[in-house]
């Protein structure tokens, strides 16, 4: 036996790799080539000043990423940092001990202070920081100026939900499809119900719901929000066959100039035209955006933002160079470059001014002005309840369920998944 051990030890030491360089693996879902190019720049910049460290970017498509992540995070292919939307999924990940507490490390050189506080908060659990934000992408109501003009609609005058309904009806009267939405993916539809809940309940109201006061989700105001969405869906305002269209297909239809409105995040400015039939979409002068309308008598304000605040969570066994690299990668210089190309709204303070595109610039200004940024609810509510909300919204749209039952089902799922 001893002899066997000796032989194994010898073999092992022969076969063992030489001390390797430190590899920082970043797992992302970014498909836009311009963004990836600038990230590579940051990687090269860091590698040249830090020999012995290699930065590796790994890509997974959105849905594949969501499905594969649990297995990846618990295998030896664990990335050093990975994309996150924050919210309920992040809570689950943090609670299972996968993530590293970087409060002190990030606070050390003032790294955490370079970000918008509300964006940074999205990656905190019980006061401890587990990741860093990348960008803030609010959801706004985009419109096609030309089509709106044809229908006799002035989007800048839409202030309340009733105005929006009237605009939809006007579009239909003019033979224009009012709204593009990706019903198969379901999350584009859930923007409506989430925003309506925000507009009806307001910040404090939503907080009370999360804290199970007044019946949680099964309260009359949530039902009212769902009813308002139902009223919209009953008008059949979406493109034909919307329940079978994915987000890329739906946004392609919008940028082909086929519908007047699309409720979508600010990422659509870059991703949308790429999905149009000619890969360019209609001219940008023709594009505009307005806030999601308020609800008369509701407590929410027009500039309360529903947004996707994406960022990077750091894993438990990540090398220290990960945060070091993030100082460069998520630093002002690189992020300003990204902003200047209008690729997204970085979560780093002071980069908004570099944004060239006036539409995106205005959105960035609202991000710094707003009192309330709510994270997209299909992420905030967790992997299970989030998808339940998505399913319910699609069912409300198709008429398969009613507002009371939907609110009740949502509350049941929420209770079941309480952290």
């Amino acid at each position, binding site marked *: 036996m001893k002899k066997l051990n000796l032989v194994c030890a010898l073999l092992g030491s022969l076969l063992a790799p030489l001390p390797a360089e430190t590899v920082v693996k970043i797992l992302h879902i970014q498909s836009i080539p311009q963004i990836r190019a600038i990230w590579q720049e940051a990687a090269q910049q860091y590698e040249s000043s830090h020999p012995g460290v290699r930065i590796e970017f790994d890509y997974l498509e959105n849905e594949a990423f*969501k*499905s594969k992540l*649990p*297995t990846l*995070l*618990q295998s030896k292919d664990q990335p050093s940092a990975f994309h996150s939307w924050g919210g309920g*999924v992040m809570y*689950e*990940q943090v*609670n*299972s*001990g*996968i993530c590293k507490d970087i409060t002190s490390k990030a606070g050390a050189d003032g790294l955490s202070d370079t970000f918008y506080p509300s964006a940074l908060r999205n990656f905190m659990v019980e006061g401890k920081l587990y990741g860093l934000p990348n960008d803030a992408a609010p959801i706004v109501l985009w419109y096609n100026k030309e089509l709106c003009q044809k229908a006799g609609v002035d989007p800048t005058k839409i202030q309340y939900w009733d105005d929006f309904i009237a605009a939809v009806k006007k579009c239909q009267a003019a033979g224009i499809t009012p709204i593009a939405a990706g*019903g*198969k993916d379901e999350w584009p539809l859930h923007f409506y119900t989430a925003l309506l809940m925000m507009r009806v309940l307001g910040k404090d109201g939503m907080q009370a719901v999360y804290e199970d006061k007044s019946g949680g989700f099964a309260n009359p105001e949530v039902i009212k929000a769902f009813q308002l969405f139902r009223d919209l869906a009953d008008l059949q305002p979406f493109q*034909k*066959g*919307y*329940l*079978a*269209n994915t987000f890329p297909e739906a946004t392609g239809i919008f940028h082909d100039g086929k519908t007047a409105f699309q409720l979508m995040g600010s990422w659509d400015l870059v991703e949308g035209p790429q999905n149009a039939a000619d890969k360019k979409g209609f001219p940008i002068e023709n594009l505009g955006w307005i806030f999601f309308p308020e609800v008369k008598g509701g407590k929410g304000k027009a500039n309360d933002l529903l947004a996707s605040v994406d960022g990077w969570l750091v894993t438990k066994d990540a090398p220290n160079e990960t945060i070091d690299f993030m100082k460069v990668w998520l630093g002002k210089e690189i992020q300003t470059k990204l902003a200047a190309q209008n690729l997204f709204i970085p979560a780093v303070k002071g980069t908004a001014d570099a944004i060239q595109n006036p539409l995106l610039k205005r959105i960035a200004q609202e991000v710094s002005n707003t009192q309330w940024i709510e994270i997209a609810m299909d992420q905030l509510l967790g*992997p*299970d309840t989030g*998808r339940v909300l998505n*399913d319910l919204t*699609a*069912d409300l749209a*198709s008429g*398969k369920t009613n507002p009371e039952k939907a609110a009740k089902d949502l509350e049941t799922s929420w209770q079941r998944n309480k952290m």
Partner: protein
Amino acid sequence: MSSPEHPLLPDKESRPPAGLFKAGQPVEAEVLVHQLGSAAGSRVSVWHRLKNFSHAGRLTTLVLFLPPALLLFTLFVALPVLEAAYYSFFNWNGYGAPTKSAGLENFVRVWSDPVFHNSLLNNLWVILVSALIQIPLALSLALLISDRSRSSLVFRAIFFLPYILGEVVAGLIWRYLYDGNYGLVATVYHWFGLEAPEVLATVGWAETALLLVVVWKYFGFHMALFIAGRQGVSEDVLESAKIDGASRWQTTRHIVLPLMRPVVVLSLFFSILGSLQLFDLIIPLTGGGPSNSTNSAVSYLYNFGIRRMRVGFGSAVGVSLFVICVFVMLFYKRLFMQERATR
């Protein structure tokens, strides 16, 4: 043990019968052989006998090949099933180890979920369509092109093509075909000046669309089985039937089909098995929607278990599906695959 006459001679009881060996010939070799062959009769163990038996190679083969097969089966079949059964009693999100015990709650939730019932129903629909539409279709085609002419060979290749396609590819292809704006279905409707229906977005239509794709994808496989079966029917039988004056239809109905019964039974077995596993076609085609109407049991497991990070719940679905499969297979075997020993 050896006799006093000669050290190698066995004692009287196990001595070869007299006259076995010719007198005068060297006796030692035969004695040795006989000794080895039945060394002192029953006094040496069976193992000893087997080991030295001339069929020694068979045992070696068994010992060499059985453990790897058993290992693979245990690792990839038995162990996962047992693990799934274990996980199904927990409320687990897939991270770390399961800690929140849930008792039978997952099973209760699975079986009381109307979406699960609908998924099982969809599985049943696929089985029925396979049995009542796909197999008769495959059978009739097989009977038409089971000869060896060139045109038959060409058609066989064509009909088999859908089966060769990857399932995800097939799902995607049909997704575009069914598209109500740009797809083939839409084009056909537009020829007639009509609005094309949104097949994959409408609840009733989507299920029918899925069944159509299933039939299209797998009928080639069954057709190939039936062609092989048909070619196994002895020509002599058919010739004698012809001589007896049987018409083509009579020959087919009374001779060919009964002789092909085992192949049809096997084919139905495969299609039931396949439809219980249906998943790869559904995800690219409809994703289980619209409104969760086109889920199968497995896609339900994926959508409601894995995607929602409820691994315990998904495991409960998996275990339920496993039990259903076992029962179906046992029942099927009993009903159709009994050995016809009494005939």
